[in-house]
């Protein structure tokens, strides 16, 4: 036979302070603590997962560092080559090709003009030319002015020698650097 409790149920508000605290602890407190424990345990597993990954990656890094150490010579050779290429480029930047200057002179100077002195420099060509007549000189100037790489023509001096019956010109050409 089932027991029937005929006493009226005591409401929460009517419980003593201690009883209220126990009531709260067993009902709400327990739920809160369990929830927090679940969260903390989840976090613990997550921490383990992160730690395992970190260990794996650390091992990979160690392996790769060892590989890199074994390739130090390649790295050194590469840097050396790159530096040499840059140095050569920089050295070449101030250079000129004498062959091009000579070809230009060969091209613009008429056959009957005789050159006695020819100075080839980075961006300039200076020469002393001898000609029997002024027509050849004008031909020379015309030929030079047609050349696109010549930026400036300067007549440094002109002389006429009655003894040899020839004109002497000192000319300077400024060459455009390509």
């Amino acid at each position, binding site marked *: 036979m089932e027991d029937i409790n005929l006493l009226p149920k005591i*409401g*929460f*508000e009517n419980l003593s302070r201690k009883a*209220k605290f126990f009531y*709260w602890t067993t009902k*709400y*407190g327990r739920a*809160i*603590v369990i929830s*927090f424990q679940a*969260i*903390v345990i989840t*976090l*613990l597993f*997550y*921490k383990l997962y*992160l*730690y395992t*990954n*970190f260990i794996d*990656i*650390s091992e*990979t*890094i160690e392996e*790769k*560092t060892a*590989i*890199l150490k074994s*390739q130090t010579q*390649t*790295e050194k*050779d*590469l840097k050396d*080559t790159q*530096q*040499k*290429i*840059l*140095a*050569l480029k*920089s*050295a*070449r930047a*101030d*250079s*000129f*090709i*004498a*062959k091009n200057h*000579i070809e230009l002179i060969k091209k613009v100077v008429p056959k009957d003009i*005789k*050159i*006695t*002195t*020819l*100075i*080839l*420099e*980075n961006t300039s060509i200076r020469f002393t030319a001898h000609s029997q007549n002024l027509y050849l000189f004008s031909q020379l100037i015309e030929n030079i002015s047609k050349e696109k790489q010549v930026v400036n023509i300067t007549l440094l001096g002109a002389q006429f020698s009655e003894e040899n019956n020839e004109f002497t010109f000192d000319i300077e050409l400024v060459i455009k650097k390509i």
Partner: protein
Amino acid sequence: MKSRLAATIKLLNKTEKEAYKTLTISLFAVSFLSVFALRPSIRVIASYRKNLDTATEVNQQLTTKITNLEKAKQNLARYDIEIHKLNTALPAEFNQSDLLKGLSFLAAKNKITILKTEFSVSEREGLLETVKISLDARGTLDNIYSFLQNLEQEPRYIRINSVILQTAQTVVTAKISAKVFYTNDAKR
């Protein structure tokens, strides 16, 4: 403010007061556990996460570097001839006798006579040490031209700074000012 709060509490009945008390205790418990149980765990995880991210990034960079070095190794092997040419153009040291031999060979090949050769140590140009060469030569105009052309095509890089040509009859005297470079590995 305090009296208003007290007045509001007075308005609540007993059941409502108890409900608020329960709620307050629960909130306090949640806050307490958050501070003393959750916060340390979250901090540790954040630190692990940060370490892992850093390690992942380092790993990725190392992978890239290894791949690039592999490519570089292949390229160094592929362009071995060009690199050899580069090393010949810019040797590690200045070898005067080799240079003189080379110049004499060129002069003989182009049928010109070298009258004088002078070497003087010049200033450093970037990574390179330089040596200035002053060279006086004599020959026909065509031979001098050909000598200059060959000088520019030498495996060892010779930079011609200036050329002065003076003709007398068929003989040309050339004063060539040039520079040679070397890397001087011992100094680097």
